[in-house]
């Protein structure tokens, strides 16, 4: 899977590139509008991560240009502006998702995965991890063909975990994924703990090994390795 990341802030660009490469993507980068347009025209990508405010142009124009020719590219917008208008404009132009800075790299990764899944595995977009398999369209989770009853939040948590498997996820990243802006950090820590505990219990009941690992009290990771 090839991804082009367009972002004018070099440090952020580098971090995103590294994270996504660790996920096994082929990552190209562009830090100006001009190089972005050139790269988009010259190469084929599966997904674009676009910052709206670039020094020499607007990310919206890239999306517009792109959608005329290559409609099948997944697009995730990252913007410092948390404005509803921008969000709607981006989605109207054909972007798949909109993230507000600052965001967690794990969140970006999960969004990209979700976009790619929708675009490239139409009909059968299964998420699998060991004996767990998930069908996103009806949000059913199976452990070796046995249905696991999960609440909506537990389901979202599981997908987020699997999207970022083997990585340490901080509590704040999990909280933000599950609750967005509707809950403050202070309230969420032990609340998350309860959700994770329940998810863990339900998976173990169906015969899964305990994939949820607590890491140094720094966060959690979802991994088959011990």
């Amino acid at each position, binding site marked *: 899977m090839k991804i082009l990341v367009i972002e004018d*802030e070099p440090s952020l660009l580098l971090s*995103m590139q*590294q994270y996504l490469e660790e996920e096994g993507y082929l990552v190209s980068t562009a830090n100006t509008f001009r190089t972005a347009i050139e790269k988009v025209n010259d190469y084929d990508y599966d997904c674009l991560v676009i910052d709206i405010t670039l020094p020499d142009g607007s990310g919206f124009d890239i999306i517009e240009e792109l959608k005329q020719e290559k409609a099948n590219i997944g697009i995730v917008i990252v913007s410092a502006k948390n404005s509803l208008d921008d969000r709607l404009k981006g989605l109207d132009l054909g972007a798949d998702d909109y993230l507000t800075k600052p965001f967690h790299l794990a969140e970006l990764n999960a969004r990209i995965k979700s976009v790619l899944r929708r675009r490239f595995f139409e009909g059968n977009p299964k998420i699998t991890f060991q004996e767990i398999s998930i069908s996103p369209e009806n949000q059913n989770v199976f452990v070796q063909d046995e249905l696991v009853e999960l609440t909506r939040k537990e389901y979202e948590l599981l997908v987020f975990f699997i999207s970022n498997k083997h990585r340490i996820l*901080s509590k704040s990243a999990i909280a933000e994924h599950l609750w967005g802006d509707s809950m403050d950090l202070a309230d969420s820590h032990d609340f998350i703990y309860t959700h994770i505990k329940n998810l863990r219990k339900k998976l173990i009941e169906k015969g899964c090994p305990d994939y949820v690992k607590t890491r140094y009290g720094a966060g959690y990771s979802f991994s088959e390795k011990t």
Partner: protein
Amino acid sequence: MKLLSKTAIYLFLASFLMAILGVFTLQEFIHKSTMHEIDELLISHFKKVEKKIKNTANLSFIIGDLDDNPHLQGIENQTIVNPIFSDTTEFDLRENAMVRTRVLKATVQSKSQNYLVTITQSYEEFEEISAKLSWGLGLYFLGFSLLLLMINFLIYRQLWKPFHEIINHLRNYQLNKSTPTIFKKETTEEFNLLSQTLAQMTERISKQFTFQKEFTENASHEIQTPIAVISANLELLLGSGNLPEKEAYYIQKSMDSLQKLSQLNKSLLLLTKIENNQFSETEVVNLSILVRNLLEIYKAFADHRNIKIFQEIQADQTLEINPILAEILIGNLLKNAIRYNKNGGDLTCILKEKQLIISNKGDRLPFSATQLFNRFIKHPNNQEATGLGLAIVKQIAEQYGLKITYQFEDMKQEHTFIVTM
């Protein structure tokens, strides 16, 4: 006391004093003049008598004057008495009283004998005229002053009208209002000066205010990017997975603080945006649906702390408001009611016509209730909070003219927020 009444009192006192003073001064002046004239009269009379005495051989004619004025008295010694004036009183038959009289005494030498001539002249009548004139003038002056004051009273309202208009403008002046207050040109120079000065002043203030607001907004935007960089780098560092426990712990703590910083920044940005009227589009929001949805979102959070939610929501209650702000307003109140609730406490949410009531159990506030809606006022037990939630609520309420009140009931140990629409 009104400026006008004060001026009137002082002016009246001054005129009164002036009138009294004027009466006596005038009287004294007339008296002096009268005396002078009477003395001249007496002298002239005396000259005639003197002439007559000197030229007439038979003085019996003069002595036979009916009212004995002038009075002639032969004297023996040769000393000459120069004219002497003096005051005395004399009985007046008409007035039937003693009247003030001027007397001139002088000696006249005739060929044969010296005479002491005494001439009298009553001046009571003149004094009466003088008194009448003086008091009359004094009263006239006083009357005239009163008339002027009355005219002043009558035209006061008209003259000071611009002033009251300016004061009214100032009273209604709001810094964050989008339309500037108009101070129009006045015909009275002083008021015009006041009006123009105020216009300039308010314009300067409002420019400064706008600048300040823009600065806050831009600063908040700019801060988000470095936060994003730090956050991403820390996440990479943590995600590498081979850090010792202690380092991972510190990174986690830094990420938490960073998250808080970002939240704080977002809240400040939101506050500024509300102040800047950037959520100006309104629509008719169905509050009943909104409140139900929000309660649904926070239900899990409430359940987590065994908080029981009691809701009583009348259907189809609407309000014209920006939908995003409506959600933030009610969401913040509900979040608070859960966060500061007791474990296993109650949360009551009532929506009826024109009123939203949200209450929760809890101990009395550790600070004054008047500070509750101020920025950065935090509960000592929750230092992690931004301290901006209720400030945002208040800002939104102000924006739409909603009244928001807080009360605490000691008996029930219950905090209640009421939004009146």
